[in-house]
C-alpha cells in the first residue's frame, strides 16, 4: 500500500524508474502466481524491460510456451474477445468509473433532496433557491413518500380489521383535535415557507428548537396515560401546530 498516490506518468528519473520497475515487476509476478493458485487456472506472464532484451517469465520458459500453445489453439474469436491493450483497458476502466460516478451522483442527489424535503417541512428551507428541475424532483420525492405512507396506512388498517382491535375511540379525539386547528395553522405554515422575511422565521425557530429538543422519554411519560403507547411527538410544520400538540399532550383529554 503506497503512502503517497503515484502519478500515472512515465518516470523520467532513470534510477527511480529502474528501482520502480524492479519492485513492480516482482510484485506483478507474485500476483500472477497467486491468481493461478487461488483460482486453479493456467496463466503466464512475459515482461520485457527497457534494460534487457531477455524477458522475465512466469511460471517458467516452458510454462509460458505451454500456455501460449494452449492460447493459440483457441479459435481466433475467443482469443480476441477478452484481449486488451493499455488503451482498450483504460477505456474500459473509464467507462466503469463513469458508471459508478453517475450512480453515486444520483444517490447523493436523492439524499440531498430528501434533506430538502424534511427541512422544508420544518419551515427551515426556502423553496426559492430551487430550480425547476429541483422542484420537479422534489415533487416526485414527496409523491414517493406519500405512497409509502398510504401503503403503511393500508397495512395498519388491514391489521386492525384482522385483529379486531377497536382503535376508533382513541383515534377520534385526535381527529377532532386537529381538524378545526388545521385550517388555521395551514395558512401560517404556508406563510412560513413562503415568507421571504427571515425575521419571521427566526422568531419561530427557537420555538421549534424547543419543541423538537424535548427528549423522547419525557414525552412518552406524558403519553403513558393515554394508552396505546403512541409516540405523539410533534411535527412542527407550523409553530402553532406545535403549541396545539403540546396542549393536548398535557391535558387529560383522554380517559
Amino acid at each position, binding site marked *: 500500500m503506497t503512502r503517497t498516490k503515484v502519478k500515472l506518468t512515465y518516470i523520467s528519473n532513470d534510477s527511480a524508474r529502474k528501482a520502480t520497475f524492479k519492485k513492480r515487476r516482482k510484485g506483478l509476478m507474485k500476483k500472477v502466481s497467486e491468481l493461478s493458485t487461488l483460482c486453479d*487456472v493456467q496463466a503466464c506472464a512475459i515482461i520485457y524491460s527497457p534494460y534487457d532484451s531477455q524477458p522475465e517469465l512466469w511460471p517458467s520458459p516452458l510454462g509460458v510456451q505451454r500456455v501460449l500453445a494452449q492460447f493459440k489453439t483457441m479459435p481466433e474469436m475467443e482469443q480476441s474477445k*477478452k484481449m486488451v491493450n493499455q488503451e482498450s483497458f483504460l477505456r474500459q476502466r473509464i467507462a466503469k468509473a463513469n458508471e459508478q460516478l453517475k450512480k453515486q*451522483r444520483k444517490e447523493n442527489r436523492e*439524499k440531498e433532496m430528501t*434533506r430538502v424535503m424534511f427541512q*422544508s417541512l420544518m419551515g427551515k428551507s426556502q423553496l426559492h433557491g430551487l430550480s*425547476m428541475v429541483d422542484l420537479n424532483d422534489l415533487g416526485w420525492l414527496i409523491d414517493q413518500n406519500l405512497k409509502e405512507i398510504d401503503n403503511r396506512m393500508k397495512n395498519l388498517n388491514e391489521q386492525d380489521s384482522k385483529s379486531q382491535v377497536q382503535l376508533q375511540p382513541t383515534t377520534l379525539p385526535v381527529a377532532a383535535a386537529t381538524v378545526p386547528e388545521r385550517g388555521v395553522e395551514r395558512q401560517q405554515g404556508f406563510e412560513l415557507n413562503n415568507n421571504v422575511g427571515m425575521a419571521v422565521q427566526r422568531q419561530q425557530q427557537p420555538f421549534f428548537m424547543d419543541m423538537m429538543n424535548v427528549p423522547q422519554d419525557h414525552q412518552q411519560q406524558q403519553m403513558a396515560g393515554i394508552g396505546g403507547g403512541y409516540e405523539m411527538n410533534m411535527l412542527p410544520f407550523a409553530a402553532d401546530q406545535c403549541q396545539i400538540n403540546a396542549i393536548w399532550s398535557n391535558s387529560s383529554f383522554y380517559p
Partner: protein
Amino acid sequence: MARKSKGRQKVEMVKMANESNLQVTFSKRRSGLFKKASELCTLCGAEVGIIVFSPGRKVFSFGHPSVEAVIDRFLSRNPSNHHLHPTSGTMQLIEAHRNATVRELNTELTQVMNQLEVEKKRGDQLNQMKRVSQAQCWWEGPVDEMEMPQLDQLKSSLEDLKKNVSKQADRVLILNTTNPSSHYFVGSSSHQPVIPNVGFNGNHHVMPPHPLPHLDGWNHPAYGHFF
C-alpha cells in the same frame, strides 16, 4: 471484529474451496493484475504480455503494445533490440501517437476517479447527517415504524408542502417566461460535469454536481446564482 472482506488479511495460497468465491476472486484479481501490468508499462516503459484462462475456460489477455506483439517477440527470440527502438519512422510515429493517447486516457481516468472519491465522501457525509437528524426527528424515520396518528400528520404536512412546491414551480415558470435570459438552462454553465447528471426520477437534465445551495448555508441566491 468480523471483517466484511479479506482485504489486508492473509489468504492461504491454495485453491479456494468455495466455488462462487473463487469466481469472484478470479474476476477481481484478474482486473487488479491487468491494472498493475498497465501501470508498469506506463511508469517504466516496459512491454508486457499476460494470458490468463478463466475458471469458465474463457481466456483473458493483456498486452502492451499488444498481446500479439509481445507473443511474437517472445517466440521469435530475436536477439536484436529492434523492438526497443522501432527503426521505421512510421512505426515511431504510431508508437508516439499511441503513447499520447494512453497518457490522455490515464489523465482522464485519474480525473474520474477523483470525482468519484469526492462523491463518495459526500455520500458518507449525507448518510451521517441523516443518522443525526433521524435521531432527533421521528418523521424522518422509516414509515413502516409509524403509527396512524403520525402517519396522518406527516401525510397532511407533505401534502401541504407539495402544494407549496407546485406554487413555487408555477412562479419559476412565469419568471422564466418573462425573463428571456433563462437562467435555469443549465447547459450553458461553464462547469460541465463529465457526465450529465440524471434527475433521479428519470428525467434527463444536465445538473451541476454541486450540492443544493441553501443546504450549505450559501446566501440565498438571487434567482440565477445557483448556476
